[in-house]
Structure formats: structure tokens, C-alpha cells
């Protein structure tokens, strides 16, 4: 497949739409903001939720904004609750085709368990913005457009 300069693929109906979210009480938004900005600069459409969102709020925004993937940044240690909860809520709303990935301080063994629970990828401290962008290009496809 041939890449376009905006990060989409030739023949795509539209640019990828990505939601970058901060769930829970964690105020560490440095990483989320850098990723949001880097994804936007790479040509994707990015919606940043801001801080202190509940899983319910993130899922509602994801569906309303018709995004292709949800990316969560969690540095509070609450990843084992928050990632699976977002996946569960997406399923409940029939939106399980919205991919979930993320980043934060997440130990290796938790990453394995979270991937089994359906999280597509977890980036840990030291990951470059390029590696995240490359992963998104390789792994996230535009969802079929819903009824407008």
C-alpha cells in the first residue's frame, strides 16, 4: 500500500481519526499531549479529551467522534482496571472495532495480560513518537463510515 503525505493510504476514504485520552485522576499529561501533537503533525485527525475522563466519557466521545482508534495514556498504575474497562464499554456499545492502544508506566507482565484482554499495543517510557506513528500507520485502518 502506498502512503500519502498526510499519513493515510492511497485509496482511503478519509484520514484516520484518533482519540487521545487521559482516563482516571492521573494528571500526567506530558506524554498524552506530545503524542496528540505528533500524531496531528503526522497528518492524522486527533481529538484530545483533556484530563480526568471516566471510561464512560472516553467511550462516548470515541463513538460520537467516529474515531478509528482510542489511545490512552496512563501513568497512575490503574492500567489494569482502566484499559479493560474501556474495551468492555466499547463492546457494550457495539463499537468493538475501535482499536484501543496506549502508553504509560506499565510493567511487562501487565502488558502481556492487557494484550490478551484486547489492547493492541502499549508503549512504555522511551518510545519515540516516530515509533508510535509507524505503528499506527501499520496497524490502524479506517473503519467503514457509519450512517451520517
Amino acid at each position, binding site marked *: 500500500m502506498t502512503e500519502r503525505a498526510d499519513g493515510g493510504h492511497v485509496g482511503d476514504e478519509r484520514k484516520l481519526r484518533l482519540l487521545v485520552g487521559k482516563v*482516571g485522576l*492521573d*494528571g500526567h499529561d506530558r506524554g498524552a499531549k506530545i503524542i496528540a501533537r*505528533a500524531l496531528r503533525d503526522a497528518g492524522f485527525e486527533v481529538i484530545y479529551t483533556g484530563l480526568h475522563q471516566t471510561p464512560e466519557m472516553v467511550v462516548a466521545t470515541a463513538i460520537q467522534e467516529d474515531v478509528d482508534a482510542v489511545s490512552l495514556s496512563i501513568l497512575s498504575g490503574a492500567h489494569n482496571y482502566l484499559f479493560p474497562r474501556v474495551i468492555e464499554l466499547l463492546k457494550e456499545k457495539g463499537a468493538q472495532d475501535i482499536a484501543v492502544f496506549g502508553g504509560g508506566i506499565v510493567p511487562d507482565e501487565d502488558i502481556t495480560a492487557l494484550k490478551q484482554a484486547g489492547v493492541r499495543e502499549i508503549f512504555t517510557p522511551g518510545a519515540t513518537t516516530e515509533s508510535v506513528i509507524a505503528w499506527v500507520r501499520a496497524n490502524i485502518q479506517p473503519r467503514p463510515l457509519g450512517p451520517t
Partner: protein
Amino acid sequence: MSDAGKRRGGNRRTRSDWEKETLADTLRTSPERPVGFTTVSDLPIERLYTADDLGPGWTESEKLGFPGEFPYTRGIHPTMYRGRLWTMRQFAGFGSAEDTNARFHYLLEHGQTGLSTAFDLPTLMGRNSDDALARGEVGREGVAVDTLADMEILFRGIPLDRVSTSMTINAPAAVIFCMYLAVAEKQGVPFDKLEGTLQNDILKEYIAQKEWIYPPRPSMRIITDLMAYCARAVPKWNTISISGYHIREAGSTAVQELAFTLADGIAYVEAGRKAGLDVDDFAPRLSYFFNAHNDFFEEVAKLRAARRIWAHVMRDRFEAKNPRSWKMRFHTQTAGCSLTAQQPLNNVARVTLQALAAVLGGTQSLHTDSYDEALALPTQSAVTVALRTQQIIAEESGVVNAIDPLGGSYFVEALTDKIEREALSYIERIDQMGGMIAAIERGFPQKEIADASYHYQRQVDRGEKSIVGVNAYAIDDEPHTEILKIGEDVERAQLARLASVKAGRNEVQLQRDLAALAAAAATDENLIPLMLACVRNYGSVQELSQALVPVFGTYREVSVL
């Protein structure tokens, strides 16, 4: 010959003689390495510093003074570490109050000289462990405190008249402080014997750390109430630790850390004066908290510049008369954001250099990060190495023998001046906006930090700034590192304790006390004695915090990308 050269007399060779006659040839045959010679904050660094770099107006008496004398560039004490070493204060808090109490006892037994308490996120946000947003976060990043019952366990067996305690809490700081006072009452310790520090720096929450309850202006009212109360009743308590640490962790440059922190300090002093307090009654109890990041000389210069700027601000701008108001005392913590999850033992070397910068910058107390903190909360063995790092600097390295050993270095003095100038220019811009609260409301520091943080990340991604083990010298197969796990049982046990406390307390009295607190929010009455009454009756962090919301409102951030 340069002016500086002439001043010092004699027909010395000048820098330009050297550049023409010696350096030029070398540069032709073997040029310098093709890298940017800049600090981690991207300040350009010259090849060589000489007396010329200090500028025509530079005089030792005006810029440096002597240790313990204005403007305190060389340190706030006449003897510095020859008199007393810095306080080794490792931040601890995780799981239940029992877990953290055990770590406190461990650290005290191993030579730590002060306590430092980390609270979990729900507590920091003024929410109880049973609040819906607290799910999954109880006891994770710090200790969970809902009511006085938790604080009683947290400080069990620790006589509060014999330790100094630092508490990292901001939005609900006054509530937690009242719980500490109530524990002291139960131990029979008079309030005027209590020593410690409350972070209580709400302005940097809006700028960087993002744990708030109310909007900035009503939050400042609680802070001035606390300053007034402590000046009267808890005179040895440091009421605010004005914090650059989190600003830096959020991605600011060294200059931004310094400038925004000092602008916060200026806002607190102004608020205190507006509340009718005499500056010399509360200013000596303000302290600062800085980050010690990777760039060694930039950090030393930042800390030396910080003391000098504050001394001038307090004496000249606020006309404080008491020299104790002019002296900036500060705590330092090594930079958590500089730690890497990759090859984590490398972090021991990073922390050592950062801690050395803090010591050569003249810190009063120091926390050294543990090497495993990019992976999880630290294990006991990693915490021990971090504490030992400080002890090695203090007792083996010899750097404590002379006061301000880097003072007088052309490079360090030129860098101190440069950082001071750039910070003052930021402070001037913030003054023009109407002060820090107005600047926060328009998102100014937030945007400056977001830009700096993105700029740095791009430099790392392009390999212009090295992070060893990450974008340089990376290895694929890393050995496993043992990490600390917090079990799910902490959350369950905490919920059970909260329920049993609520069932056992005098509900009628508590509701009366909470109503009195809520009513006082609309008046000028000092809120602290009313909060103390509520916590004595086991009112919770969330109940007290929410009591003020009808009058104070809540804060919502407009995100700046």
C-alpha cells in the same frame, strides 16, 4: 585588551589572542565534534568562559556576596554543609497506611532524617476511596487517606515532635494538614513543636501537575487562611513549598521552571499581603522545591540564580525587613522524567549526577529517585541504593568540605547570570499580564511548557539529544527487573475501613461541623479551625472538600496542546 583584562591590570594575553594564535590552527586540522553544544534545555554553551563573559557590571560583592549574606548566591548558611548536612528525605507512600508506616520506620532506621509522604491520586484530588473516579487508583501512587483514622495509622509509633514531616498534597492540603494536627493532639504534642512542610502549592497544579478542586482564586483564599493560622499556631511549619519540580517534569526548560516557580512565589506573597498579613510574618515559612535534571551546570546555575532572584524580590519588591524573608530555602528531587525503563541500572548514574548538582547548588534537603521508578513504584532495595547515593556524596566524595565550590567559575557565574536574566524576563511578561493567576487563566505557562516539551521530544526523536540506553546504545534483550506490586486487596481493605469509620462516628456532630465550614466559605472567617473540628469527628477528605464547592465552584481546564 578587554575591559575586564584591563581592570585586573597587566599585559595579559587575551581570549582573542588565543583564538587567533592557537585555537584557529587546531580547528583547521581537527574540527570540533559535529554536535550541538547546548544544555538539555537548549541554552547554547560557549567553547570557553573567561572573565570577559561576566560582563562589565559584574562585581563579586553584588552578584555573590558571602555565604549567609545577601544575595545568598553562595548559600543561605554561613557554614553550609560543614555545619549541617542537607536533610535526606526520601518520598514514600504506597498501598495502605500500614504499608507506608512500615516504610517510614524502615527509612528512619536506615539514617533518613525526615519523612516525606506521597498520597494516592484520589486523596490528591480530594476524593474518597469509594468515589467512582477512584476505581483502580486507591493506594497505587501513594498512600490512601480518607479520614483521621488513616492518618493515625500512618504516623503510628512516630513521635511528631521528633521528626520533620513533608506532605505532598495541594488541593486538599488544608484538610490533610488538619488531620496531622489532630494526630499531634492525640499524641499530646503541642502544635508549636511541629516541624515540617506542606506542599500546598495550588498554582503549579493548574500549570503542570493538574490535581485541583476549585478555581485559582478561591484556592488562594484557603492558602492565605492557612498562612495566617500557622503564623499564629504552628510557627515552625513551612506552609507552602513552591514547586518547580512538577513544572520541569511536565517538560519545561530550566529557565521556565525557575521563572514560573518564582512567579508563583510572588503571587503567594501578594495574596498574603492582600489578606492583611505582614510579609515578615509569613515569608520566612515559604520554602521552594526544585528539580535536579541531567544537565549538571545548568542545574547548579539555576539553583544559585534562584536564591539571588528571590532575595532581591523579597527585599526590593516586597520590602521585607527580616533577612529570613530574603533567604530562599529549598528541597530538591532528582528528575523522575529523566529515568529510563530501558537498562534501569543506568539510572543510578543519572541520579548520582543530579544529586551532586543539587548539593553543589546548595539544597537544604534532597530526595534521590530510585533506579526502578520508570517501571513502577520503587522496591525497598532500590530505595536503599538511592539513599546510599546521598550518603556517599555526603560522606565519601568530599564535595561538602568547602562552601559553594563552583562559585567563581567563569562558566558557572556566566550561566547563573544568563539564567537569572532569562527568568526575570519571563517574570516581567507575567507581571504585565497581571500576575501568575491571570497568566494561568489565559494558558500562558501551560502553552510555553507544552511547546518546550514537544521541542525536546522532537530533538530526542531526531537523535539530537541523547538518552543513553534509549536512542543511543540501546540493547534488545533486557534482563528482567524486580518491581513492586500493589495488590487489589489494598483497595478492598481501604473501602472496608472507610465504611467502618463512617458507621462509628458521631454523624450528628459531624454534619453540624460541615455545615459551619460550608457557611464560613461565604464569609471572611478563617477556615482552618472549622476544618480541624470536622476532621476530629472523622469527616473525610471528600466531605470537607465538597462542603466548600457550593461557594467556591470547581475547576475545569481548557486543554492547551
